[in-house]
Every structure is written in structure tokens, then in C-alpha cells.
């Protein structure tokens, strides 16, 4: 027990701070990127749509580990050197942005044509229609997917360890190599992740409840 309190928790707390420093900016910027890409893939001109589709297919088709490896170990071949932290955040943003854009796109496409027609018939301009009719509906539809994506990012932030950005998993790994007590240390690290994931799930659930509209995208009547 004293092993956990004296050695494991302080090390993992350091790791937690690094993990949060990875997750928070990556998920926010990645979300913004996803919204922009998703909107571009639905409303953009042809070339932009193709570009957005290519970006999404590419980054969703290749494992995140490979993307991180390319950013951290590959780019120096072109004379571009990234710090582990920078490489991790860039990799997370690009990958999560690609996934987020898929949810945003799906949500935008799911809006019925009649809603837009009704708004036009009332005299809404295109911008007003998007702002007051399309966006509130799309946001509700995209919320579960986008929230889940953030939860995924919490877990996949552990991959930063692979390119030597020492966060929770990395701290745990180092501690194990010093103490040779893998089960306790990794389980303890697991508890940190479980708490983060459970908290995020709970918040997402509350948000969904808060914005639920009867009869709208699976909400209960």
C-alpha cells in the first residue's frame, strides 16, 4: 500500500498532467478541425469536398500509431524535426479531426430538406437558416458521435508514449522498469484512465439529456 501511495501515485500524477496537456488541446482543436472539414465536405465547392473526403479517408484508414511514427521519426528525413509533444498533439488533432468530420457530415446530411424549405419560406436567409435551423439540429445529431470520439482520444492519448512523450502510460512503463511490479502499476494507471473515461461519459450523457428534444434523434418521448 505504501508502495502505491509513495511511488505510484506521484509518478502517475505527473503523467496525468501530461495526458491532460495532450487531450485538452487535441480534442478542442481537433473538434474545430472536424467541424470545419465536415461543413466543407457537405457545403463546400467540389474541389474542397474531394479534398475533405481524401483527408478523412486517409487519416481514418491508417493506424494512429503509424501517423505518429511518420510525424516523429519520418519527418526528420525531410529536415522537419518535431518535439515528441508537438508531434503527438499534431497527430491527435489530424486523426481526431478526420473522425469528427465524419460525425459532423453525417449530422448535416441527416437534416431533412423540408426544414430548410420551411425556413426559406418564412424569409430566412441562407445564413440565418444555417445558424438557427441547421446548426441546432445538426449539433444534437452529432453530439453522441463527437463525444464518443473525445472519449476515444482519451484512451488513444496513451500512444504518445510510443514516440517518447511521457504521459500516464509512459510514466507507468518507466516505473515498472524500475520497480518490476507491472500488475499494480498498470492497474493503477488503468484506474486513472477509467476515471477520465467514466467522467467524460457521464458529462456526455448529461449534455445529451440537457439538449434532448422529444422524438428527435432517438431521444425518448
Amino acid at each position, binding site marked *: 500500500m505504501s508502495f502505491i501511495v509513495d511511488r505510484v501515485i506521484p509518478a502517475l500524477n505527473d503523467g496525468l498532467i501530461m495526458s491532460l496537456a495532450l487531450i485538452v488541446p487535441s480534442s478542442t482543436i481537433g473538434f474545430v478541425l472536424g467541424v470545419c472539414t465536415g461543413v466543407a465536405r457537405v457545403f463546400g465547392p467540389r474541389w474542397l469536398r474531394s479534398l475533405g473526403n481524401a483527408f478523412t479517408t486517409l487519416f481514418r484508414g*491508417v493506424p*494512429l500509431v503509424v501517423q505518429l511514427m511518420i510525424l516523429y521519426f519520418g519527418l526528420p528525413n525531410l529536415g522537419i524535426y518535431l518535439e515528441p509533444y508537438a508531434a503527438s498533439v499534431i497527430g491527435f488533432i489530424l486523426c481526431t479531426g478526420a473522425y469528427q468530420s465524419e460525425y459532423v457530415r453525417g449530422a448535416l446530411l441527416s437534416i431533412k430538406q423540408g426544414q430548410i424549405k420551411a425556413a426559406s419560406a418564412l424569409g430566412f436567409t441562407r445564413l440565418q437558416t444555417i445558424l438557427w435551423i441547421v446548426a441546432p439540429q445538426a449539433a444534437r445529431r452529432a453530439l453522441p458521435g463527437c463525444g464518443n470520439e473525445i472519449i476515444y482520444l482519451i484512451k488513444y492519448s496513451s500512444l504518445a508514449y*510510443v514516440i517518447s512523450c511521457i504521459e500516464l502510460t509512459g510514466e507507468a512503463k518507466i516505473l515498472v522498469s524500475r520497480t518490476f511490479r507491472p500488475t499494480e502499476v498498470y492497474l493503477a494507471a488503468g484506474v486513472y484512465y*477509467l476515471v477520465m473515461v467514466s467522467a467524460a461519459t457521464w458529462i456526455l450523457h448529461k449534455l445529451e439529456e440537457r439538449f434532448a428534444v422529444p422524438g428527435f434523434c432517438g431521444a425518448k418521448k
Partner: protein
Amino acid sequence: MTELLLAKLSVILDALPYILEGTLVTILTVAGSLALGFVVGVPMAVLEVYGPRWSRCLIRTYVWFFRGMPILLLLFLFYFGLFELIGLNLSTIAASCLVLGMASAAYQSQIFRGSIQSLPAGQLRAALALGMRESEGILYIVLPQALRLSIPGWSNEFSILLKDSAMCFVLGTPEIMARTHFVASRTYEHLALYLTAGVLYFCITLVGVSLLRCLERKVRIPGYASVNGSF
């Protein structure tokens, strides 16, 4: 310039047979864990929907644990910790299959549960009315329908597992990533080699997803729509 490119090309070509061998290991790992996840996930889903209270709690805890943990950490925890603790001595491939499979069972059980719950309740009731026992109704009526509905989600799970399998190189599993990493650290052609690995994963995903789409078409029942899956 062309010479430089040719040199890079020859590095890739030299390494390709070695990396391609890793493709087999990757496919084996993915197939193994997908199968394990299926075999465990289906009964879990059935128990979660129809089982007694205690089994539901047990399954929810299992799902909560495996879905709340990063795959990387699970690999470390089981391979270096728990497996050794219980005296299980596994090859890296077997260990990768087992860990990914246990995690996948958690994810797959939720796919199947969703499908089962989306079926109209009248299906099982009609089976019971014909004199089937509940277990027979589930086996012959509910599952054949639910599994068909699950194919898109399952195809999604396949591409997630394929990408997750790239993490198994941390255990030394000789799959695509481990081999790419090995060659790259000797030739210093990281960029070219990792891009090659990326292309490989991309191709396997495409092939796998289109195979699953074929399967979906093959077992389709008219008038039985399912949500479109994508990778």
C-alpha cells in the same frame, strides 16, 4: 534527385518481403481477436439482454473496464503483469490475440446488444407462441436477425481492430509495425518505410471492408435494411 529516390525505392523494395511477412501476422492477430471477440461477445450480449440481474451487472462491469482502458495499457497490463502472475506463458502473437480479443468482446457485445434490442419484441413472442423455449427462440429467431443487423458495426470493429493491432509491436509481436520499425532503425529511411506501412494498412482495411460488404449482401434478407457502416 532521381538517384536519391531510386535509392529510397530500393530500400523499400528490399524491405518489402520482410514487412509483407508481417502482414500475415497482422491478419492472423486481427482474425484471431475478431473471432475471440465474437465467440465471447455474442453470449455476453444475449446474457445482457435476457440474462439474470447478476449476469447483467457482471457483463456491464466487464464492458466498462475494457472499454475504459487504452489498448496499449491493456497489452502492458496483461502481457507483463497478469499473464505472468497466473503463470500463463504465451507467445507474443497469442498474447496479442487474447488481449485484443478480450477488449473486442466488450465492444462487440455492445454492437450485438444494440441489434438485439432493435428487433421488434414481437419476434421472440411469436417464437414462444409457437411453443419454442426462450433459448430456442433466441437461437433460431433472434440471433439470425440480430447478427445480420450487426454486420456494418462488425465491419467497423474489424477496421478498428486492424488499426489497434499496430500497437502490438510494443510487445515485440512480429507484425507490420514491428518489422517496419526494425528496418527503419537500421536504414534510417523512416519516412518512406512508415508511409509504406501506412499504405499496407490502408489496403488491408479496404480489402477487409469490401469483403464484409460482400458478406452483408450475401446474407441480406429483402426488406431488411441495416444502417450503413463505414470504416
